[in-house]
């Protein structure tokens, strides 16, 4: 009895152990050898520890950024980074175990919904499921849910999103790809459908509708070639300009013996390093779990459509990706200046979201509204995907998150569901 209590209170409470056990379950269900089960489980545990290390690096940089931004601009500057949110939730806030179990629950509910309803989609983008698990767990916890209820509600909501989002996108995906065998598994779908709607309203119609694919656009910009380079391109000028506005006197109190501008530069690189380490941890963590559970899912629902990551659509409309990226960035920058006028935080632009979500949204905008639809739809989309995360900033601040907000709008919508519906309902009863 004492041994069991020891295991429950000291070992199973450790998030890294829970995650390793989930991986172990998946590997055993796949009938892997003992060696593979042990090494896979240990690698998963290692992935969680690496993720935690990355999170600590990010938090250090964001804390510094928050201080110089507030000093320089007299308001809170928020960096949109689902990675930073996930890292802090799993590590600093101690929700790692609940997030891991919710991650598993989302897979299970996805399988159940696909198996027993006509919505036959299996969501294969593991990283997106992890972000959804993070948001449902964080906001479920904020709403007052704990333990099994937290995991099951989060798993159910995540599972519904994992099926509903591909289903909502499918009429568009069918037209974009010319086939029905593949679906879209990216938790920014509400934004895509929103842009499609705006583009249909304001875009070109009938014979006047011209596609952006008929245009000859300049070749891709070099800085987009690497994820970390893309983040650096925004972070370095952002930190340096902010430090300049904060002033030498204040900024030097934070930089010690190092020149305050140099320190700002190093801190911006530190943010990128933190993201690099965290994402390496995420990849290691998911490397065993995702193949195991998506294999099980596909075998249990063999006639389900695989919902793949957003690059699946890029080949069908490559110019629209570039137009979408540029116009979404414009929309994000507009929102950055407009939202504080209405009392919301200043959300700084996120390059990765602008490229992947903005690019994909551009494909939807071009489909329903041609060139004008893609351009106007893109700008409105950029505004929309900045507004929704801005609504969560107060909640994130009160929970102890440092100067960050989430990005992917479907995960933000799930969080708003908790904040505006589930939380108040629970308080009422």
């Amino acid at each position: 009895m004492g041994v069991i209590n020891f295991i429950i209170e000291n070992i199973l409470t450790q998030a890294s152990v829970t995650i390793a056990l989930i991986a172990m379950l998946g590997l055993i269900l796949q009938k892997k050898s003992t060696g593979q089960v042990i090494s896979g489980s240990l690698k998963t545990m290692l992935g969680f520890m690496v993720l935690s290390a990355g999170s600590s690096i990010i938090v250090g940089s964001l804390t510094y950024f928050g201080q110089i931004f507030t000093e320089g601009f007299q308001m809170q500057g928020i960096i949109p980074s689902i990675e930073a949110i996930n890292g802090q939730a799993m590590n600093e806030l101690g929700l790692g175990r609940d997030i891991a179990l919710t991650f598993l629950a989302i897979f299970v509910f996805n399988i159940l919904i696909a198996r027993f309803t006509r919505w036959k989609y299996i969501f294969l983008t593991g990283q997106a499921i992890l972000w959804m698990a993070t948001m449902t767990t964080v906001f479920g916890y904020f709403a007052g849910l704990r333990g099994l209820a937290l995991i099951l509600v989060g798993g159910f909501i995540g599972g519904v999103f994992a099926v509903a989002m591909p289903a909502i996108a499918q009429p568009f995906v069918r037209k974009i790809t010319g086939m029905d065998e593949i679906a879209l598994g990216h938790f920014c779908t509400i934004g895509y459908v929103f842009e499609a709607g705006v583009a249909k309203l304001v875009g070109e119609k009938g014979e006047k509708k011209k596609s952006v694919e008929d245009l000859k656009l300049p070749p891709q910009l070099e800085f987009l070639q690497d994820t970390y380079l893309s983040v650096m391109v925004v972070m370095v000028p952002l930190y340096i300009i902010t430090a300049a506005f904060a002033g030498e006197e204040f900024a030097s109190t934070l930089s010690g013996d190092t020149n305050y501008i140099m320190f700002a530069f190093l801190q911006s690189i530190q943010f990128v390093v933190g993201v690099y380490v965290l994402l390496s941890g995420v990849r290691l963590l998911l490397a065993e779990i995702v193949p195991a559970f998506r294999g099980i899912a596909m075998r249990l629902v063999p006639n389900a459509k695989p919902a793949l990551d957003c690059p699946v659509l890029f080949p069908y409309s490559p110019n629209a990706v570039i137009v979408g990226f540029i116009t979404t960035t414009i929309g994000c920058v507009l929102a950055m200046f407009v939202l504080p006028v209405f009392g919301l935080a200043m959300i700084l632009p996120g390059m990765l979201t602008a490229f992947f979500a903005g690019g994909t949204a551009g494909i939807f905008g071009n489909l329903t509204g041609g060139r004008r639809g893609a351009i106007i739809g893109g700008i409105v989309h950029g505004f929309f995907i900045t507004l929704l995360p801005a609504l969560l900033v107060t909640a994130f601040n009160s929970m102890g998150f440092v100067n960050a907000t989430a990005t992917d709008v479907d995960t933000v919508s799930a969080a708003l569901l908790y904040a505006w519906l589930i939380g108040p309902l629970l308080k009422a009863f």
Partner: protein
Amino acid sequence: MRKREGGSMMFGFGRKKKVKEQKRETTDSVVLTIERKEELLRTLSQKKEEVNQVSGEEQAKIYEEIGLVLNELGEEDHAIDSLEKSIEAKKSVGDGFKTLLKLYNKKRAEAAKVNDEESLQKYLKKMDQLMQVSKDVTRGVR
């Protein structure tokens, strides 16, 4: 729940969806005429001779053409092999990429139906790799 244009509901609760799905399944198998088959075989032997005489981008293009012909002839495994060689020689997201994605998905679905875990994982991994190719090409990574 509001009805969309065209009469079918967004979440597929409309009556028309089942009929549409049945129609889509039957149009996948296209019957080749004898003339078309002969034309394809001629193209195939010609391209197979050319492919070993060139390298780099040109070779990638010819492997892609061979792969597309093999796919139309119904030789899926050989088509996959050729299209993979094309993308290895030069990453691209043209017809070859799209055909390869379709073929991988078909193989994945077949493996799932017969509970073949090894093949299922193999083709899921290949689809992951295609996603990376798509990302790389769109971002201009050589």
